[in-house]
């Protein structure tokens, strides 16, 4: 089996949680990751946009931001604020309008759609089509599976299965993340692949969603191509 470089694109660390970045990195290296992206909420990181990670961990950890907005105008304003300053922009989805505004915006890297949360709509096939056009990756948050039980988990798995069907159809980019808030939420890549198989993701797909796609997102592979096309 060829060796892959695995990445986890949604990890929360200090100051949002109590876990320092170094601690998370130590565990992630032992689990076999090639890199993790620290995506704290933008509310917490206000005024620290330009701040860089210490050079000792800069080649392993990447800085990102997770945007949680309540309205479309607020979302657009915040994306414009962080674009170019932070290497990775993740948007937490919510209502249909918010998801639509996110997926139509090529500045966004990853959308974290809500999976089966009450009162929040997921993605429709039309929206996933926009995601494929604008190269916005769609996140599959495995922490939701790990931390729920019985009917909640059944609903979440059903939703993920549905979205995976759209993603396959329109060739959008899936990304598997742990959304870890502590070192105990991190899982090794092989375990992530096994968890992804619970909602019908094949092994090759899951490995691709853990290694090649996140690496391409961090390198801005697809976005660069788009910029060249526009010029």
């Amino acid at each position, binding site marked *: 089996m060829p060796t892959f470089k695995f990445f986890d694109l949604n990890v929360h660390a200090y100051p949002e949680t109590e876990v320092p970045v170094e601690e998370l990195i130590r565990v992630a290296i032992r*689990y076999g990751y090639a890199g993790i992206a620290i995506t704290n909420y933008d509310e917490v990181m206000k005024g620290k946009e330009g701040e860089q990670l210490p050079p000792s961990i800069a080649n392993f950890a990447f800085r990102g931001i997770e945007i949680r907005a309540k309205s479309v105008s607020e979302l657009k304003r915040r994306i414009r604020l962080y674009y170019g300053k932070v290497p990775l922009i993740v948007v937490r989805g919510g209502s249909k309008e918010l998801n639509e505004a996110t997926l139509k915006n090529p500045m966004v890297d990853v959308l974290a759609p809500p999976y089966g949360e009450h009162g929040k709509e997921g993605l429709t096939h039309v929206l996933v089509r926009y995601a494929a056009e604008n190269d916005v990756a769609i996140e599959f948050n495995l922490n939701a599976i790990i931390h729920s039980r019985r009917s909640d988990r059944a609903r979440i798995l059903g939703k993920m299965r549905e979205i995976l069907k759209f993603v396959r159809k329109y060739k959008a980019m899936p990304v598997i993340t742990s959304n870890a808030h502590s*070192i105990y*939420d991190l899982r090794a890549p092989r375990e992530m692949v096994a968890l992804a198989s619970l909602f019908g993701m094949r092994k090759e797909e899951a490995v691709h969603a853990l290694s090649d796609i996140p690496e391409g997102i961090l390198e801005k592979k697809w976005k660069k191509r788009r910029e060249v096309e526009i010029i």
Partner: protein
Amino acid sequence: MKMKRAKCKSQNKFCVLRFALLLPPTLRERRRYLAFELISEREIDKRALLKEIRDSIYLLYGDTGASESKMWLIGYGKKEDAEGGTDRCRGVGILRCAHNKVEEVRAALACIHSASGVRLGIRVIGISGTIKGASRLTATARKQKIN
């Protein structure tokens, strides 16, 4: 001469009995042994861990799935040289399952997030076909120092 014959007979009997008790190779079940490593906030009892693993498998795959996986905890022990960092408590253990249910058991292990109120995370180090092989894996994991 008589004595010798008697001895031979008894030995023979013993041999027949032993082979009758053992399952023939064609009927034996194929098993896999999963060596796993655990990090947790505090020390975890073996019994609590086993209960949590069983619950996880029952919740994920139901009664029929759990019966097919034939899961059994062979051994679990604390790792000795656990120092530094917040994950002070670490353990390594061996789990048995059916040879075609490894991925299912792996997913069930990954679904465990806490046992009796203690947060934990499980990682499978390796898979082996024999207990000897699995214990070799855990032995190397035990020796590994935390960097």
